[in-house]
């Protein structure tokens, strides 16, 4: 096992990038990065053919550490850059990593349209329910009643459920995991990358500094214990009532459907156009 | 270099095919007659209805200002467009109106032809009134051969409507050929009032 970790570190992390990383001790982002690397390793993908694009925020800092083709784009816009890249070179494996605010607030429009369009991209969304990097302001996934830097008296808005939003918007593959359920996470990310079509993996993570601390949720270990206690599989969730599912985290694959592939459709259009001209 | 600009304005309402007629005329001038040609238009947000204006400037020399300065020829397809766009009419210009809709004329140098009635009754399709008018304008300007006008029409209209449009074009040219321009009065104002 240590040899494998050593190899993954050697094969996938950038040697010339100065560590340590920017994330706080105990942050779930490192766990996601590990899961992403293991998923890519298990799929035996060529690094030259991998693109990882991110937006702005803590999650946005992930690409710089890995030895792929990497982009750190503007806030909320990672999917738009990824769209251009994938269309310009469909042979590339294009992944994005975003935070909850990044993907569903400022980038919300791009997110639902990328899902609707169903271009073959993979969107990893780390949902820590807060804007971490900017200091704990409420995000679209901050639960009702929570405290945040901009909700001193308790949050009066209601949270998005990212994975369900992606299903409704038309994504081909949607899954949810947490940073506690790591082996499952490795598997879900690998499935998402392999899927032809737009795939979304929502990952519930802990921001004990900006969210947990304000809401008296304890240290990272305690928060992860919470994920473990609240998690319920998709299969189990199907047997539970709405009241029973309240405050639970449904994990697993929410949807996995086959739809016409965007780049293949595009090629059909090119063939028609060439015949006509 | 003497400026030999010839300036034509088309006025009508949206959906009457005014802009298409101007585009075809510009293509006849630019592609088939070998003139320099500029075609411009102004329009409002409406796709149908509302006033619509299109202009064509042709010259044997390179065209600087692309819009009409003073009209040599003004085609008005209805009264509202005539009233709105008659300004900057050249003293000895030529006004051509669709007498189906235009009843009041602001100039004695006017030719009235019932384009819409011809399209409706003789061709059997009111929609081609613009092409009937195009035929008349092309001929009255004396800048185009009927062959080249026909080529330009054929190049623009869809294949299945080709015959009816060619028929419309010739109907317009025929109506115009029956007009004797020599009988039109000269303007009482002089070219001194011509703008730059």
């Amino acid at each position: 096992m240590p040899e494998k970790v050593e190899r993954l570190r050697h094969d996938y992390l950038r040697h010339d990038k100065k560590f340590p990383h920017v994330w706080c001790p105990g942050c779930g982002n490192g766990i996601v990065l590990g899961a992403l690397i293991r998923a890519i390793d298990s799929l035996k993908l060529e690094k030259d053919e991998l693109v990882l694009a991110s937006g702005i925020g803590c999650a946005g800092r992930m690409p710089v550490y890995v030895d792929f083709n990497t982009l750190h784009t503007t806030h909320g816009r990672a999917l738009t850059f990824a769209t251009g890249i994938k269309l310009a070179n469909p042979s590339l494996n294009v992944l994005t990593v975003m935070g909850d605010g990044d993907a569903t607030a400022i980038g919300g429009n791009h997110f639902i349209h990328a899902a609707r369009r169903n271009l073959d991209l993979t969107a990893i969304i780390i949902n820590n329910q807060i804007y971490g990097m900017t200091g704990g302001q409420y995000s679209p996934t901050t639960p009702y009643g929570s405290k945040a830097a901009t909700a001193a008296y308790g949050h009066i808005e209601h949270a998005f459920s990212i994975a369900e939003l992606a299903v409704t918007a038309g994504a081909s593959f949607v899954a949810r995991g947490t940073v506690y359920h790591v082996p499952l996470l490795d598997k879900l990310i690998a499935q998402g990358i392999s899927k032809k079509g737009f795939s979304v993996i929502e990952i519930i993570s802990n921001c004990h500094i900006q969210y947990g601390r304000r809401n008296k949720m304890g240290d990272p270990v305690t928060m992860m214990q919470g994920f473990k206690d609240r998690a319920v599989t998709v299969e189990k969730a199907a047997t539970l009532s709405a009241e029973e599912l309240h405050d639970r985290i449904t994990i697993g694959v929410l949807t996995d459907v086959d739809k016409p592939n965007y780049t293949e459709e595009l090629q059909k259009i090119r063939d028609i156009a060439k015949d006509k001209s | 270099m003497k400026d030999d600009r010839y300036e034509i304005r088309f006025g009508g309402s949206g959906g009457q095919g005014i802009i298409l007629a101007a585009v075809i005329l510009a293509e006849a001038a630019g592609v088939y007659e070998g003139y320099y040609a500029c075609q411009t238009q102004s329009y409002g947000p409406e796709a149908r209805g509302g006033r619509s204006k299109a202009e064509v400037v042709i010259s044997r020399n390179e065209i600087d200002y692309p819009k009409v300065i003073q009209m040599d020829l003004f085609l008005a397809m209805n009264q509202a467009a005539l009233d709105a766009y008659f300004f900057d009419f050249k003293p000895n210009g030529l006004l051509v109106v669709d007498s189906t809709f235009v009843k009041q004329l602001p100039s004695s140098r006017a030719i009235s032809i019932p384009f819409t009635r011809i399209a409706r009754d003789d061709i059997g399709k009111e929609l081609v009134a613009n092409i009937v008018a195009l035929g008349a304008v092309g001929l009255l300007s004396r800048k185009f051969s009927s062959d080249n006008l026909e080529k330009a029409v054929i190049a623009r209209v869809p294949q299945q409507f080709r015959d009816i449009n060619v028929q419309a074009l010739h109907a317009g040219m025929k109506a115009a050929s029956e007009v004797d321009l020599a009988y039109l009065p000269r303007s009482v104002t002089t070219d001194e009032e011509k703008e730059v």
Partner: protein
Amino acid sequence: MTEQATRQVLQGNEAIVEGALAAGCRFFAGYPITPASEIAELMSLRLPAAGGTFIQMEDEIASMGAVIGASLAGVKSLTATSGPGFSLMQENLGYACVAEVPCVVVNVMRAGPSTGLPTSPAQGDVMQARWGTHGDHPIIVLSVSTVSDCFDITVHAFNLSEKYRVPVIILSDEVVSHTREAVFLPAPEKIEVVERIRPSVPPEWYIPYEDNSRGVPAMAVLGDGYRHHVTGLIHDNKGFPTDRPEEVNAFQRRQFRKITNGFYEIQMTKSFMMEDAEVAVIAYGSVSRSALHAIKAAREKGVKAGLLQLITLFPFPKRNVDPVLRQCRAVLVPEMNMGQISREVKRVNLSSKVVTINRVDGQFITPTEIYNKLLSM
């Protein structure tokens, strides 16, 4: 092909599409907006036949993001919009500046802030094109005045963009974009097309933002084996974020130096009857056509008038404007705005009288207006 077959009547917006295709553009992302939509419509027809990609995105920010992404993946890319959409693009346009991503943005200007007058001509976005995105940045802004310009300048815009790794803005207006004009398009083999310089060293030696005499680093393409990091953060020459003052300073100054180095070819103007001119018009875009008509008329009246037409608006062509200001006792700057380029002319002026015509009613400036003003100068 016969001569007749190559002579075409094209709209300005159509000529922009033809120019882009001739320059090798194979990607367009955009969002509908009057008076620029014809560019998207024609691209959706022409690009697939050329093996390229057209996509209508959910908004203009997304369009700009997709254009940058496609360019990073090695495909020359275009977007087209009007004032309100151009404002939305600005954030990602800044990214293209800082990450040095070649791309071309057409802005068919309309009148007024906000929705303004969507179908009327204006030149209100001159300063937005220069300073619309945040922070200090170099950018190239070109203007078009005729349909054949739309073709030539679009080719040129792509060439400059590739050569200097900088976004190039083409400012058009309703008059230029919607005028149909008889033009001869040059044969493809007669068109000079410039490609970005790709790395010539092995991937392990590649330093993505390494300085050189031109100040323009060689650009690798995503997927070609030169794995590197692209970021909107100020970065060191390896592309990694940095806040070390000496690295930040070197980066910022190189951004400007690469454009300054190219002033001679970037700053383009055209002169008409300037040899003996005593008064001159300095104009750009469609208004330069009115101005050309007006100076000819003024010459007939015995006024020694000339025209300096600005093709490059930014970097402001001081080198070409300066001799006109020295030569003429007065210059007239007519614009369809309250004085965005006249302010630049006044900024570089030391010796002449600068007069303006500012029209902001959504109407085209006529030759008569310019002529009357010239006679009074």
